[in-house]
């Protein structure tokens, strides 16, 4: 699965774009967070690796912007394992280990659609980091390889 951020203009929000693409390509797109306001909308979704190319193409054809979400990064040099971020994370991507270390699971992070932890870090150790768009395909490849490795 690859996490992708889809953005829609105000006009596109009114159309059942996502439903159409799911039906047309029979892809199980898993929407994680969604947000709509007067300027348009965006949603973060998990797309299966093998359908990534098709899905990205289909959304782009319909006028949506497709990017990788900004994810948070914790600078372990600055982090002093307090835990101020832990209870703020809605998806439990940040947890406290047995030895009281603060652990971060990037796979669970919903990134820029949330970022609740970023401003709350007393150490200033958390940053929302842009994922390079040009690497979208590479990332998908890497994700694929990783999945393969895990299954082997």
């Amino acid at each position, binding site marked *: 699965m690859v996490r992708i951020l889809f953005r829609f203009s105000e006009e596109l929000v009114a159309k059942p774009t996502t439903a159409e693409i799911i039906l047309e390509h029979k892809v199980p797109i898993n929407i994680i967070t969604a947000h709509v306001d007067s300027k348009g909308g965006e949603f973060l979704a998990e797309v299966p690796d093998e359908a990534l190319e098709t899905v990205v193409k289909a959304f782009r054809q319909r006028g949506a912007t497709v990017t990788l979400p900004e994810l948070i990064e914790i600078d372990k040099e600055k982090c002093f394992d*307090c835990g101020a971020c832990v209870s*703020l994370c809605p998806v439990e991507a940040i947890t406290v280990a047995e*030895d009281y*270390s603060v652990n971060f699971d990037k796979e669970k992070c919903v990134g820029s659609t949330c970022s609740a932890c970023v401003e709350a870090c*007393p150490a200033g150790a958390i940053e929302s980091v842009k994922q390079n768009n040009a690497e979208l395909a590479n990332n998908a490849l890497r994700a694929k390889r990783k999945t393969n490795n895990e299954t082997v």
Partner: protein
Amino acid sequence: MEALKLSSKKNNRTIEKINQKIRTGDVQVLTSEEMKKLVESSSVEVAFKEVDVVTTGTFGAMCSSGAIINVGHSDPPIKIERAWINDVEVCHPGAAVDLYVGATAMSQMQPFEYGGGHVIEDLVRGKEVELRTTSYGTDCYPRTQIKTSLTKDDLNQFYLLNFRNCYQRYACAVNSRDETIYTYMGKLLPQLRNATFSGAGELNPLMNDPDYETIGIGTRIFLGGAQGYIIGEGTQHDPKNLNGTLMVRGNCKNMLPDFLKGAAFAHYGTTLYVGLGVPIPILNEGLAKKTAIRDEEIFTNVVDYGVPRRDRPELKKVNYKELKSGAITVNGKRVRVSSLSSLKKARDIAGTLKSWIENGSFYLTSPVERLPRDSVFKPMRQTEGTPFVASVMQAAVTCYENEEIRAIAERIVTRSVNHIIVVDDGNRLGGIVTSWDITRAMAEGKTALADIVTRRVVTAKPDEPLEAASRKMAQHNISALPVIDAERKVLGIVTAEDVSRLLGR
């Protein structure tokens, strides 16, 4: 009885005997977590026999901290009147060139990001900082301004001088409001969606010697990675309510940045995280028992920080074991809870202090005076009353959602108000409509009230301080707040005009 007392006295340890054992390398030291395990697996008697010293530790945001520094005299000399280090204003509490860097003072260019705590950390790290000073000039101190760069090596004295550290325990914070709030207890999500706590629980120094038998003035401690001293009880020391505090001092030039960290709480301010550990000599069996205290025996209250008052509502009692588990139950709801102080560092400090004693680089001291065990923490004497929302609240002009916009417009004119509150049959808040909304609806040709109602309404409670209500209006750029009770029934309205009439702004 008498014989028993005598014999137990004979078996008692003394600080001198412990120091002798440190010298010969025979001292038995456990961290307070290890002590608890030993007592659990054997007994208090065995633990007393085997253990000489128990080490404790805590690493938390300690706002009432700072450093006293002496920068030396310039030529020609200056009597500093105002001074800034890295753009953070520092105090000039004494004569010419003594400065106090307060942890919570904030940078003027980067407020809420960089402050006194960061200045102290940067100096401890060996970084160069910029000092800027101004003065009115005197015959003996003619200079009126200086700008220079300094490192800790250039300072004559650089001492941490913290007037309140090491809170014995602290409240667990939640927020009942409909909006996120930013506090010294961190970011608190609306409607009790998260909770934060502070303090090391069973690792806290004062929890391991709650009667101040061994902790007193002159007790040598771990402070910021170096050896420091307790110089008295901290301000707001409240030992009878298990809210004891310490005043401490230590030489920053020997400290380590790992145990002294500048920090910033978003929209609240800056502070300093301080690492502090106290060795507890096990002088008698009572101390062996006391140092075996467990997290489940240490209770604190879940407090609603959504209420901006001194005495905030206490929602329930919890113990530190529950707090450290990651989730508590409040009002029947699971609330995720996390620590603001670092439990990992607290453990690290207790372990480091243990190794210092074991390798003979740290000796225990006998306090020269005990700390007060019966002092009380009084609230401020206030000679002027504080206005609350209830004191300026007016009756609200209301309407129902099925009314026509035209009818609302008439009401605005006849009652000469700017805000109409939409209520249901039970007088519960449904929304708010302003004269501006009506004007816009007219311009856009809308007739149904439902299309123009603002439903996410910022509200006030009658017992809320007027200043808090005023702050809310300014933050949301609005001019009135419906006043509601716990069932969201409308009690009245408070407007910006009413507030400015009373507060004069």
